């Protein structure tokens, strides 16, 4: 039955090559922890992606309760933490995942760096990876404000002040991020929410797609 359904679809849109592109390839010995345990360092990238998936899923559930508005943001988070079934766990996963993803990203970056895996022909993928790192830091910075508690508010105030120190574009940068050159308030929260939930994830998905397509095209770098 399943085979028939597969054949029916395959006959029309030829999905076998797509499937082969995604999953039908060989994994060399030097990256396989089953053969050399030290090859676990090759897991860091995959685990980073795994945490990103956790972040996306937990974040989607958080937006079911979160209200991006200065009157209600904190209250909605408090309600989620104290009243909603498993809300504490879902927010916990998003909160701790944000830290764990940075740790895994750092480990993955160091693995690639010290193995010299970014050398020709993989320069482009390294740059895409560093951009992913920046996007992730941006997600961390914007997400920090959203609970709208004191530590979020004052950290963002400092962060925006630092952004304002940048010559020429400083004031412009503050307004772009915070919605107003001086006030950190309703506009800042909605902008950070939009950046955190729409703009940066869009960039993240696009960069991740390029990252993975390049890995499949170029393969994993050979043993040292």
């Amino acid at each position, binding site marked *: 039955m399943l085979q028939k359904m597969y054949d029916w679809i395959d006959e029309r849109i030829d999905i076998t090559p797509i499937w082969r592109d995604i999953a039908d390839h060989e994994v060399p010995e030097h990256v396989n922890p089953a053969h050399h345990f030290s090859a676990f360092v090759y897991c860091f990238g995959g685990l980073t992606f795994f945490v990103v998936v956790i972040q996306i899923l937990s974040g989607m559930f958080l937006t079911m309760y979160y209200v991006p508005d200065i009157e209600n943001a*904190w209250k909605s988070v408090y309600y989620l933490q104290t009243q909603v079934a498993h809300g504490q766990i879902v927010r916990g996963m998003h909160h701790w995942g944000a830290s764990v993803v940075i740790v895994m990203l750092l480990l993955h970056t*160091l693995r690639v760096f010290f193995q010299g895996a970014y050398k020709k022909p993989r320069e482009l993928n390294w740059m895409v990876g560093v951009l992913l790192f920046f996007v992730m830091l941006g997600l961390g910075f914007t997400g920090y404000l959203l609970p709208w508690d*004191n530590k979020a508010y004052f950290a963002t105030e400092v*962060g925006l002040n*630092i952004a304002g120190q*940048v010559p020429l574009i400083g004031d412009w940068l503050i307004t772009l991020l915070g919605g107003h050159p001086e006030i950190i308030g309703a506009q800042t929260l909605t902008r950070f929410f939009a950046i955190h939930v729409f703009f940066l994830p869009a960039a993240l998905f696009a960069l991740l797609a390029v990252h993975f397509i390049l890995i499949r*095209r170029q393969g994993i*770098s050979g043993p040292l």
Partner: protein
Amino acid sequence: MKRGKGMKYVGDSRVSAEKTSTTPKDYSEYPGRTVAFWPNFLLTEWLAGSVFLVGFLTLVLTHPSPLEGMADPTTAGYIPLPDWYFLFLYELLKYKYAGGDYVLLGVVVIPGLAFGALLLAPFLDNGPGRRPSQRPIATSMMLLALIATIWLTYDSASAVDWEARAEANKPIPPSEVEIDTSDPGYEVYKNSCASCHGDNLTDGAAGPPLIGIDYTADEIAKISVEGIGNMPAGVFDGTDEELEQLAEFIFTINEENKEE
């Protein structure tokens, strides 16, 4: 290995082997045993992911995500602190030649150089050797940056009393409880307690909020006289009648708060 439905695909989808200038060796050229990604290797990955997930969820379940009191721009003396992975940048600005008059160095030049070098690493370190020992400059620069980042983060974090911060900024439940300022207990409260616990029992210069505590009236009276934790003994100086009024007043507010 021949799969698929008769489509003519040679090998997998990587760039064809002829363009050796841009293409790595085919895996079949590597020595040793290769494994099919599907399903053999995916199973290994899945197991590794499961172990990771168990560890991660243990962290989540044992450490509730923190939440401080609702943002209040008028909070005096709040020491701002970014998330831990920005601490190194934050700490950098405290150095004499990265902050103050030299803030451009700390905000733009140093991070710009560091992250710019990271982004352009493949072009700065473009020799053929891949082993760390074959590229001493790149390796030592990265180690130096790593040590500096860890040191700055440690330096910044070790100066913070995390437990005291969490204690001082506990989230106060949104409460609709009206404080009856005509209650005789409130008069006593104002004289003895308000300087530390605030006029509304919710915050103050030195004491924690008094709404959302779980004590009986007798216990509250005892604490008022004898102190608890950082609270010294003897802050209450009044008659026994006033003490009773005070304890009853604080107790009643907490009872009302519970009902809401």
